[in-house]
């Protein structure tokens, strides 16, 4: 075990700080109220509006994050740039994206501007090609109510690429245990330590990215006695590929997993790109999405349809479980006391297997799903040999539709079969009615998505934009 320090260390805009605050304090409150850096704003306090965007430097790259969702305890040992730090690193001259936005009429009320500037700066400074799509993806997590975005997008297109040196230092070590104001935060580096702490402190709040639980601290202003940050555990931070499968550690962020998922399951990657925003995906983890067990967790139906297996660890040993058996009831899982998600193993698609997933929400970006559907199909000629159908948003847990699957087994792959099969979905699900949709609407969506799947496979030349939901 490494030495426990009783100090947290941060580098913000090149300066060292040792914050003496309760570790669940949000970075937003810390940089505004303690450091007096008022450029970063609070618009919503829940990671939706992006006004609080700051940049984290890791692996020499800039990652936009929502400072309202990140706790200081999570930031410990890290290096960050706020809007004030951009010019500071550029010999006190405003950076090209700042000038382009200012001179191109990209600000009106200006309140969203620092968040937009920082989010776009990460793109301008990256190696990514600056396409219209890349700009939209970058801005999906930043709300602007005045400009209509056009002048901002134009500014991003016109702006010169930058390679500003932020003097990224070697990562400072973080404190594995930090206590302040009656609050204790553990951030173990090894799985063994994590399991030991968890088994002795089952009441502690366990999280990894904290983009869901973080709302309890940002908006909810909760100050729990004990927190366990699992994001630094080495054994949970890996991606391993074999001939037949890919295994992703529970603490791997969506952003880190995305390139691999894109390569193996492009349709799944489309869903991941619609989870929150870049800011959220840079913090949130695959394991967190599984562990939080939301009925509308976006990755879950995909993982179920893909027949993924979970590996769970506790001090008593290791066990493997099909992910579909993991979800017991609304936000209840089969995780035992002192047990954690280690990784998820996803079988690769065989050459005769097809996978598609669809997300329906009120907005394209940055929205909670109404219904998510995922399908894995195996055809023999025109006969359905195997079809796994999974839905989210249709019940208290994400789940397969066994009646529909059974009905379609050995049926001919045509529109009639799928239309008829659509009626069976109601045998498996009784969705609730809420502000995202009525029960009837959800059932209709699920039925239509099954047909959409058919047309998507059988008439791929149809303009896919028409299908964009």
């Amino acid at each position, binding site marked *: 075990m490494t030495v426990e320090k009783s100090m947290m260390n941060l580098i913000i805009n090149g300066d060292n700080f040792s914050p003496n605050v309760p570790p669940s304090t949000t970075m937003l409150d810390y940089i505004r109220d303690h450091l007096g850096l008022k450029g970063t704003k609070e618009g919503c306090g829940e990671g939706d509006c992006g006004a609080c965007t700051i940049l984290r430097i890791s692996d020499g790259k800039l990652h936009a994050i929502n400072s309202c969702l990140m706790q200081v305890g999570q930031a410990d040992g890290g290096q960050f740039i706020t809007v004030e730090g951009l010019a500071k690193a550029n010999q006190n001259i405003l950076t090209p994206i700042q000038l382009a936005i200012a001179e191109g009429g990209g600000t009106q009320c200006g309140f969203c501007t620092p968040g937009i500037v920082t989010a776009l700066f990460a793109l301008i400074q990256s190696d990514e090609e600056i396409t219209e799509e890349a700009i939209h993806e970058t801005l999906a997590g930043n709300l602007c109510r005045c400009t209509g975005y056009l002048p901002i997008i134009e500014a991003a297109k016109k702006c010169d690429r930058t390679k500003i040196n932020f003097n990224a230092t070697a990562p400072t070590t973080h404190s594995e245990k930090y206590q302040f104001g009656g609050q204790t935060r553990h951030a173990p580096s090894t799985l063994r330590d994590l399991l030991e702490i968890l088994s002795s402190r089952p009441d502690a709040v366990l999280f990894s990215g904290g983009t869901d639980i973080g709302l309890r601290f940002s908006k909810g*202003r909760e100050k729990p006695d004990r927190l366990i940050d699992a994001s630094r555990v080495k054994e949970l931070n890996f991606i391993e590929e074999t001939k037949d499968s890919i295994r992703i550690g529970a603490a791997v962020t969506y952003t880190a997993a995305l390139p691999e998922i894109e390569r193996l399951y492009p349709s799944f990657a489309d869903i991941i790109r619609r989870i929150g925003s870049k800011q959220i995906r840079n913090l949130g983890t695959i394991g967190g999405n599984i562990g939080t067990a939301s009925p509308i967790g976006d990755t879950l139906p995909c993982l179920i349809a893909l027949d993924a297996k979970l590996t769970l660890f506790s001090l008593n040993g290791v066990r493997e479980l099909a992910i579909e058996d993991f979800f017991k009831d609304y936000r209840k899982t089969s995780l035992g006391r002192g047990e954690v998600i280690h990784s998820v193993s996803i079988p690769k698609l065989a050459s005769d297997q097809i996978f598609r997933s669809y997300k329906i929400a009120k907005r394209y970006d940055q929205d909670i799903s109404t219904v998510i559907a995922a399908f894995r199909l195996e055809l023999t000629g025109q006969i359905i040999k195997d079809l796994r159908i999974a839905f989210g948003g249709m019940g208290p847990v994400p789940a397969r539709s066994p009646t529909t699957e059974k009905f379609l087994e050995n049926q001919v792959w045509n529109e009639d079969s799928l239309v008829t099969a659509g009626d069976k979905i109601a045998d498996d699900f009784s969705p609730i009615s809420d502000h995202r949709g009525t029960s009837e609407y959800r059932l209709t969506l699920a039925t239509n998505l099954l047909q959409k799947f058919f047309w998507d496979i059988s008439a791929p030349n149809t303009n896919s934009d028409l299908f964009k939901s």
Partner: protein
Amino acid sequence: MKPTSTIIGAVHQQPNHDSALKHVSGEAAYIDDLPAPRDLQEAVLVLSPHPHARIVSINYSKALIMPGVSGVVTADDIRGKNDIAPVFSGEPLLAETLVEYAGQPIAAVSADTYDQALAASKKIEIEFEVLRPVLSIEEAWKKKSFTFDPLEITFGRPLEAIAEAPKVLEGDISCGGQDHFYLETQISMAVPGEDQDLTVYSSTQHPTEAQKGISRVLDIPQHCVLIEVRRMGGAFGGKESQSTIIAALSALLARKVKKPVKLRLRRDQDMLMTGKRHDFLVKYQVGFSQNGRILGLVVDLAMRSGNVADLSSGVLTRAMSHVDNAYFLENALIRGWPCKTNTVSNTAFRGFGGPQGMLAIETVLEHIAVELQKDIGAVRAANWYKKTIRNTTPYKQVVKDNILPDLVAELSQKADLIQRQREIDEFNN
């Protein structure tokens, strides 16, 4: 012609926003970014959880003994008038014995920190006697429950014209409201000065209204209240009258605890307690000719005013006076119904009723076009205001300098409208 480049702010120039460089650098200071005055208190509001209820009792003794708490205010602390109505009167700042929407402020608590004020706010005990709410426009309309007297414009002989028209249609349309979602939530910081003086940093579109409201609530002369507005983080109408509530509450607390008080609504409270765009229910009856010309029209515009009038009279008037949009209504009866519901009082929002009124007439024209199987463009053109005849609005203003027919002709030609329409029709057939 050479542009005159020496004229500053000339039409052909695009000068920067005067704060643009400060916006992008993060230096532009909004109220929450200002240096805190000594002993600054943060405030949190207690809102009604019920849309309609009688307040039986309020007990805040447990809140007062919470750490850091400097004070609590309720309607009882208002020395002046508990009324912040911008147009009419009788619109309370804090609920007295009756709450009329879920989200209505009842009390405010201040403490050294926001978290302390929040914790204390949860210790305020309020006993309610829950009453039945009126939640829909339809129900309020049927009950003739209004926030002010309904309005009416009559032009020509609409009922007779409809009776004599070759064709008649009836219909209705509803349109929803909208939250302003200014990125900077409502905020105000009140700093007591000498004697009765107060300096109030308010994120407001209407400093005079804030000054008037505070003066009335605290019963101090208006000249004692200095409203300071450097900039707002968005407003869109949402900080025209609604910001007075925030400013007056911070002032009331500051006066009571004799310390500077900042009230910054967090997003959820902001969305719950402040007004939005009015949703409308529109019913119409229209008589028209075979070529789609409107001969007589009766339109009823029922708006969700909310619990009080606020600026609804202006919004309703604007909606009614925009029903003509670009069309001559020879015979029209336009009625406005300000429905009082147990929901948050709606307020100014970009367009201020104009969009809702225009939606009404465009719906009528679409309906006629569908009925006659005619192109909507042709139906619109048959009804345009003309230059010298058919050029008086229902509110009897003569439309001058009417360039609409020329403008549309030029645009149609430049946009190749006929060819495009043909291609669309071919694609769809």
